[in-house]
């Protein structure tokens, strides 16, 4: 048995899916080049780096969340459409499928993060080397709750279209997550409770220690406990929904 072969083939299948890799890798890269490189404020310093790096991290977070959402969602749909029964006829131990899919999704997320970081490195992003590694790692880790988010969509609606819609909705969550444009006032206060906010803020933490600037130029600081609480709370919400939906799926049989 070669789980590595299985995972490599599954990864390649997802990577060559143009729709997938476009939204996961190319779109965030393009967004970064538009809003993080070719702008007047790209070189302004923030924390241990510059605004270009600040933007790059958010785009990488967005791409990584897209990766885990779409792969986990697709996995749920595949399992329910009979591929799971096909896999049950092999020596694959129960539960190893989840592990293999998680690893595949994380590698896909890491691809998005890697491409964004390399583009950032060769353009205008500036951070100290240590911050660079820390933020890249946290970007990948922070995308994990979105695997659960994708699973919820896949389990609830059992269709690729629903998973696509959930991935598309990430644009709105990304906007509320302060990923695309600095938010202000009441919107910022509300945004702190949305799922992408924690993920993006966690990835940016090594750069600014939680400091941020609003569109109007006002300074604010997000405490680390607040960021972690956001990530943990949403992971819990999505996780519980997965369990409930999973139970419903088995009860129907």
């Amino acid at each position: 048995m070669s789980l590595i072969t299985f995972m490599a083939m599954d990864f390649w299948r997802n990577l060559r899916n143009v729709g997938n890799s476009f939204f996961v890798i190319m779109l965030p890269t393009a967004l970064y080049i538009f809003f993080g490189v070719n702008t007047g404020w790209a070189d302004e310093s923030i924390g241990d780096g510059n605004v270009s790096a600040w933007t790059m991290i958010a785009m990488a977070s967005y791409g990584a969340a897209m990766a885990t959402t779409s792969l986990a969602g697709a996995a749920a749909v595949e399992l329910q459409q009979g591929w799971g029964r096909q896999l049950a006829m092999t020596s694959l131990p129960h539960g190893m499928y989840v592990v293999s899919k998680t690893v595949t999704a994380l590698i896909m997320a890491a691809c998005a993060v890697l491409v964004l970081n390399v583009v950032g490195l060769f353009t205008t992003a500036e951070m100290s080397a240590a911050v660079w590694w820390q933020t890249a790692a946290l970007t990948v880790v922070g995308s994990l709750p979105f695997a659960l988010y994708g699973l919820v969509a896949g389990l609830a609606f059992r269709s690729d279209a629903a998973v696509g819609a959930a991935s598309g909705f990430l644009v709105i969550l990304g906007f509320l997550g302060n990923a695309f444009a600095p938010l202000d006032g009441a919107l910022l206060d509300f945004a702190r409770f949305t799922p992408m906010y924690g993920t993006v803020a966690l990835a940016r933490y090594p750069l600014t220690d939680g400091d941020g600037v609003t569109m109007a130029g006002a300074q604010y600081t997000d405490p680390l406990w607040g960021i972690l609480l956001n990530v943990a709370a949403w992971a819990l919400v999505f996780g519980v929904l997965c369990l409930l939906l999973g139970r419903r799926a088995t009860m129907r049989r």
Partner: protein
Amino acid sequence: MDITPHTSDRPPMVAVDSVTRSFHGAGGRIVAVDDVSLTVEPGEVVAVLGPNGAGKTTLLDMVLGLNTPERGSIRVDGITPKRAVQGSRVGALLQTGGLLPDLTVAETVRMIAALHRHHTPVEQVMDTAGLTGIAGRRVGKCSGGEQQRVKFALALLPDPALLILDEPTAGMDVSARHEFWQRMHAQADAGTTVLFATHYLEEAEQFARRTVLMGAGRIIADGPTDEVRAQAASAHVTVTWSPTAEQLDGLPAVASSEVIGTQVRMRTDDADTLARHLLTRTDAYGITVTQASLEEAFMTLTGAETTKETQR
């Protein structure tokens, strides 16, 4: 748990012992498999024949460990179904199994091969299943029959001692169906035990020496295919006749009858007796006798079962 006693030194390939399984349905609990016992010895080729909803898929799913019995026990080659499957002793072509449309045929076989502890070389399996010519084709672009062949290849991968096929020729045209059974013959001749579900009597007749007839979750008949077919045999007798109600009721061996104008159409399990009676004791004439289809035979057999159940 004890294993069903038998004469040979090997355990039976499949030993189903008093198994019951029910599901939540629209109108309460539906008993899909009702106290079924079945033993298949190594090397046997057995057809499970029955109409849709007879419980064939539920039974085979339990033999594969995809489902667990509520009552009773199942052993495959002496061990639990799950362990037999994990140990690559069982290959299955599932009716409800799904393939990934964006993989090519060859990729699908290679991907599943990677998950077996031991497997037959991919090229050999693809050749046996007749996939070499379409190896590079996306599964989503394959016809229903071609997808069945891909599933067949996946079933052959573990080089199984037991092959389980659930409606293997669904979606195939007549020639593809013929070709499929040709390939299966080769497998069976090599000593593989085959247990397959079908609702085509011809498939059971041509391929299985033994047939298990299922209806409404129970085994109605189990024996050599010829005998089971004779048991399931049913015929239509049509005559020109205007009988009275007493005359109709007095007919022997009639399962059901209907009067259409001057014609009377009857279903019977003993056409000879009925015909003799009609021609010698009544003024009926213009008799025709036609063999009923398997579906109708099932209605005769399982209809009786259902009546019994309601009486209980």
